[in-house]
């Protein structure tokens, strides 16, 4: 089957029962998407699948023929961090960082739908992504800051 991940085309034969998460991690060597539960409970494995949020741990790889997938590795473009990524750094929105890839993908999707969410909308939209370190207040702040455009025009020199 054909699969486009972070703008790159792949021709790949999914194994029976293989999940999109495993395929991304182990076969496409994109370990940024995380395993937290394997049952759609935590959001650590969140990716964009055809521009919609998906828990990649419960998506069968073989169901992704011709799909377009964006993972955490695809958020920065040409070595330049996305404003949300900068906002997460500036507002300390990652403690252990394990939930962070999923949080950033979910936040990217939120801002694509709603460029200026209020705090209640952020909380609602992000409530499918658990963070046991309790970084939630900082994540809300970071998303709000990014949506205000605080991190749009920063130099990319130190990015990569």
């Amino acid at each position, binding site marked *: 089957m054909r699969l486009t991940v972070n703008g790159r085309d792949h021709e790949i034969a999914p194994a029976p029962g293989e999940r999109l998460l495993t395929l991304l991690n182990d076969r496409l060597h994109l370990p940024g998407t995380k395993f937290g539960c394997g049952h759609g409970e935590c959001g650590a494995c969140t990716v964009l699948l055809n521009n919609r949020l998906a828990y990649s741990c419960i998506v069968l790889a073989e169901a992704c023929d011709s799909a377009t997938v964006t993972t955490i590795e695809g958020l920065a473009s040409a070595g330049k961090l996305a404003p949300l*990524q900068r906002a997460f*750094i500036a507002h*300390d929105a990652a403690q*252990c*960082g394990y939930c962070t890839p999923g949080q950033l993908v979910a936040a990217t999707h939120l801002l694509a739908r709603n460029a200026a969410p209020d705090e209640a909308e952020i*909380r609602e939209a992000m409530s499918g992504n658990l963070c046991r370190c309790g*970084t*939630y207040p900082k994540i809300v702040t970071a998303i709000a800051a990014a949506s205000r455009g605080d991190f749009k025009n920063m130099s990319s020199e130190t990015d990569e």
Partner: protein
Amino acid sequence: MARQSKRSTARRGRTFVETVVEVEGRTEKRVVELPAFEPAAWKADTALEIVGARVPRMDAHEKVTGRARYTADIALPGMLHALILRSPVAKGNVRSFDATAARAVPGVLDVLATGDAPPDTRLFTGKISYAGQPVGVICAETFEAAAAGARAMAMTFDAAPFAATFEAAVAPDAPLVRSQGNLMADSPMIEGRGDIEAGLRAADVTITREYRTPVQLHSAIEPHGAVAEWNADRVTIWESTQGIFRVREQVAAALGISQSNVRVIKHYMGGGFGAKNGAGAHTYIAALFARRTGRPVRCVLSRRAEQSDSGNRPATIQRVTLGAKKNGTLTAIVLSADIPLGVSGWEGGPAQIYHELYACPNVRTEETFAWVNSSGMQAFRAPGYAEGAFGLESAMNALARELGMDPLALRRRNFTRIDLRRSQKYSGNALRECYDEGARKFGWASREERRQASANPAAPASVVPSSSVASVRRGFGMAAQLWPTGGGPPSYAQVRINNDASIDVLAGTQDLGTGARTVLAQIAAEALGAKLSDVRSIIGDTETLPYAGNSWGSMTTPSVGPAARMAAEDARRLLLEAAAPMFDVQPGDLETKDSRIVVRDTDRSMTFAEVTKSLGDVMIVGRGSRGPNPDDVTIATFGAQFAEVEVDVETGIVRVLRIVAAHDAGRIINPTLAESQLEGGIIQGLGYALFEERILDRATGVQLNADLHDYRIPTMADIPAIDAFFVGTADTVANHTGARGLAEPPIIPTAPAIAAAVADAIGAEMTQIPLTPWRVLGALENQRG
């Protein structure tokens, strides 16, 4: 500092002395090698530029790009996957174990079962003492193949009667959980001071309550896991752990090999909270399979295993009696507690805070620890203290109601400047400032006006959105906290100045998400007079780095921080000695700042790089170690939290609107990162207060909510407005950086503060957490009689 002069003679030669270290609330005596020198303490008014600055987390870039490598991300050529098979019965034996069909599944390589693991791993003994206990393991080319193999296993079990609750374990004819009996040796543990009977007689008011706290699960989003690879007789283990050296020691002992043949690496980990303090079944399994197969093996726990067999905060039943004078002065504190620990654990009970938080002359606690047929406990953020605070602080709030006294005034009245448990001073204690600043920021004094305003929809909008439903009641509560956390030796560090003047801080510690990498670099940069951007922390590898202890007990900053500072001071001394001849001055004439060496009171200067380049291949290596703790003083953190809640008296649903948290942890190395830790602790405390509770099936002993759906942790939608901050200043007695630990304290007072606010809202006491809707409705029902 007193301790410097006292020990100055010992310091000339290398000497080993004893020091007292507090770990997770337990006091330990340790032998420590005295450092060659100890820098003078950074005082409260010492001008520091990098320490105390809100610099961004130094590994944030890796984390936001998905480049941070966690254990499960380690993928080695030819790597196999191991999946643990678990017992469905709570007690009994493996009757039959037939792996024939499993071995025939394509991709399955090997199966281990009873008798296949060395005794020190305590794995696969054939005897079962809790549901979910590992009984075997399958190793396969892919995780899917291992799972298919697991489905093909034919296993039968003999189920025996079990005791999964405290009551069942102490019943006269209880089945034996452990062969030595169902009570922990030394149970009940009794501790006291003063004269309880006299204290109770002297009381004008006494109250007695029974409080219950649930089993709380760590629930790190990253499950436990390890990857192992052998190379001849040496094994390398990538492990998600809070203690690389402890894992090394345990693996070496269990496998009967030397510690130098075990290398443990941890780059990043997805949270620990106390559950990842050593080697586990997954570690031994990865190492054993990798040795048998000659291929690397990854073993990562399933979420079900993570929630049911990776440690927990044990439940408690706390019967509390408080006696007080009319003016609130405590005359007696009595606790009798029952703690079911699981099949393994230690005496991390609720009693300690009862002895420490208040100035009461008469205190008696009794703790009975029982073994029960459920998964063993592990330290969980402020073990014992979080549980104990729910009992003690809830009782204090009940006493305040009984006395008709402001709960904050009651606490102020019983403030103690000294540690009455050990009859010695605290190194620092800003609890009163926590009360003052917390109450001020919360608006504690004007809470009745807020309540009125919230009941009146026409009132001006408050800082938090308020529900307009008529059945919603507003309430306010508070609680206090103490946590012994001075850190201590041994901990070593090196600071290496490379010949391009980039600087490495090396310490065999680990960053759980706490910020250790950043904090150590800040401390070293400050001490060295280097730019922070020139400094990098290298941690998490037993093979290449000097020893540091586990990252538990909020110990890393106060233990490794001073070692890093000393190493940096040592490196600075060497650098200045090398530079002095270049300026034709004495080293004492030189100063460092922004990675530059300046001749004092002149404009002559050189960059570090100019100096190191001219030294050629000489590498400057500074060495540091953590000195002993000061004698006869208790090092602790303090704090007070204030909660505002809404309770719907028709549905029983509690919504926390606001938490204000004021904490004293000495000097704060990085306020932003420290506040993140406060918020994290408060949010885990909110989960403990409202949702989190492990449920075991009474009939089978099997856990019913071993996932993240039915075991509910807080989500972003549950989070109140949190204002968490620090009061207090550098603790120059504790250690020469002035910092104490701070990760665990914030979870301690949250649940009792929230429970008090709920009680305030509904006019009925809450004696059991979590405060689920049915418990809230039950409390209302009881009160109506």
